[in-house]
């Protein structure tokens, strides 16, 4: 169970015009602007639910994920995940979550995938029987058997993403955060990743929170979407709520963004 109530997060951003003279001026006097990354955000997500968290670039998606995973501390508001406050009980909390950042790797670049997995086993203190069991299951579901002995730098993006997802699930987390997991993947790999997420949710009842710009991901995976723009939640409902009479979800979403001026 995830509850977030009235969460607010502000960043201080320094501003200056382009050019040498203003860069020089900024040395002595900096102008700041406050950006409300999150402005009174509240939602509840139940166990085993699969939620698409969408919004344009810079809307506050990543900030939300970072707060939920204990990386950032918000200025105001409360957040409880299975009874824990992420930023206060960080170590306890992160044992139960898995995070995939689509644009950043968590595997060691120069060594075979297996070595990274072994290190994660140590980091999460996974017992050997459950590690072997999970690894076998994940290898099977994500078709990794060929890849485990290859150094990460020699994997294709799609292969690497499958390994990344497996790496985030070795410790059997209850909640999985996926930050743009299908970015840059080809059609086959995308389908493989989607199938896997569906299976995972069905078989292990893992709560999945997914951010993406790919509307097909959303259509294939989730019923519920939370749409955020300029730091506030604009819609919490199903995909049909925005779809209306447009031909494609893509167009519907673009129209929605335009109508809200975000």
């Amino acid at each position: 169970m995830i509850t977030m109530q009235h969460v607010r997060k502000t960043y201080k951003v320094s501003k200056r015009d382009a050019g040498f003279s203003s860069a020089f001026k900024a040395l002595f006097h900096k102008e700041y602007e406050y950006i409300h990354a999150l402005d009174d955000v509240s939602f509840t997500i139940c166990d085993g639910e699969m939620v698409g968290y969408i919004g344009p670039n810079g809307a506050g998606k990543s900030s939300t994920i970072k707060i939920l995973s204990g990386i950032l501390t918000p200025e105001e508001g409360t957040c409880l995940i299975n009874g824990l406050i992420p930023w206060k009980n960080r170590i306890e909390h992160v044992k139960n979550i898995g995070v995939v950042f689509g644009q950043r790797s968590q595997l060691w670049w120069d060594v075979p995938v297996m070595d990274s997995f072994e290190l994660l086993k140590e980091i999460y203190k996974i017992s050997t029987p459950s590690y072997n069991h999970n690894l076998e299951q994940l290898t099977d579901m994500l078709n990794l058997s060929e890849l485990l002995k290859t150094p990460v730098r020699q994997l294709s993006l799609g292969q690497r993403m499958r390994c990344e997802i497996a790496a985030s699930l070795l410790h059997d987390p209850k909640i999985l955060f996926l930050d743009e997991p299908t970015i840059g993947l080809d059609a086959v790999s995308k389908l493989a990743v989607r199938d896997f997420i569906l299976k995972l949710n069905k078989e292990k009842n893992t709560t999945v929170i997914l951010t993406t710009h790919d509307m097909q991901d959303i259509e294939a995976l989730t019923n519920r979407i939370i749409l955020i723009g300029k730091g506030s939640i604009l819609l919490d409902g199903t995909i049909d709520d925005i779809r209306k009479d447009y031909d494609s979800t893509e167009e519907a979403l673009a129209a929605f963004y335009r109508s809200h001026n975000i």
Partner: protein
Amino acid sequence: MKLYGKYFMIHFKSTMEYKTSFLLSCIGQFLVSFNVFLGVYFMFQRFSKVEGFTYNEVLLCFGITLMEFSLAESFARGFDMFPNIVNKGEFDRIMVRPRNEILQVLGSRIEFSRIGRILQAVVMFVYGFTVSDVHWNVQKIAAVLFMLIGGTVVFGGIFLIYASICFFTLEGLEFMNIFTDGAREYGKYPVCIYGKRILQLSTFVIPYALIQYYPLLYLLDRGKSYYILLPLIACLFIIPCLLLWKLGVRHYKSCGS
């Protein structure tokens, strides 16, 4: 500790993937320090003594300081490279893993090529050791060991301060190099030759003198017997560094996705 062992192995394997590069950087590290060694040598061609220290004694001093620094650099490299870790978002990853952050940063970088410099330091030390007329006994060997421990901790502490500042600036601060690389260079000679003020500063503020000058006096039979323990007292320096780090982690802002 077991986790650190695992990190160690994975870095070792990574390094072994690029054997030639590893070998060349080792040789490079060795040669650069050798240069400095030559510098000291030529100095002493002109002057036979500096503030009462002979060439061999200075070599002993430099050997130990360089070893301390190189050890700290091999193991605390993660803090030295910390601006990179923050800017590339690696620290986000560290935060979502259920282990102590310091251990993970330490484990994220281990620099094996520093072995070249450590080797150079050992050569210098052994040379200074054989030609100087220090009478070795168990206490003195213990003193050297304490110096290595204390020195590694103090330099590690300075790297930690450097890293903590990055939380506030998101950038490395070059001026901090005065305290790391600078200290290594100044460490060629016993601290007292730089004058009384510097000696006081490096006794009470940043305890360089406790890991270098005083125990050296002990080795040379010129100091009091309690000097042997000063390097261990210098380890207390790590406490304020850790506090600053804790403050920094709380202040952590992350950066764009």
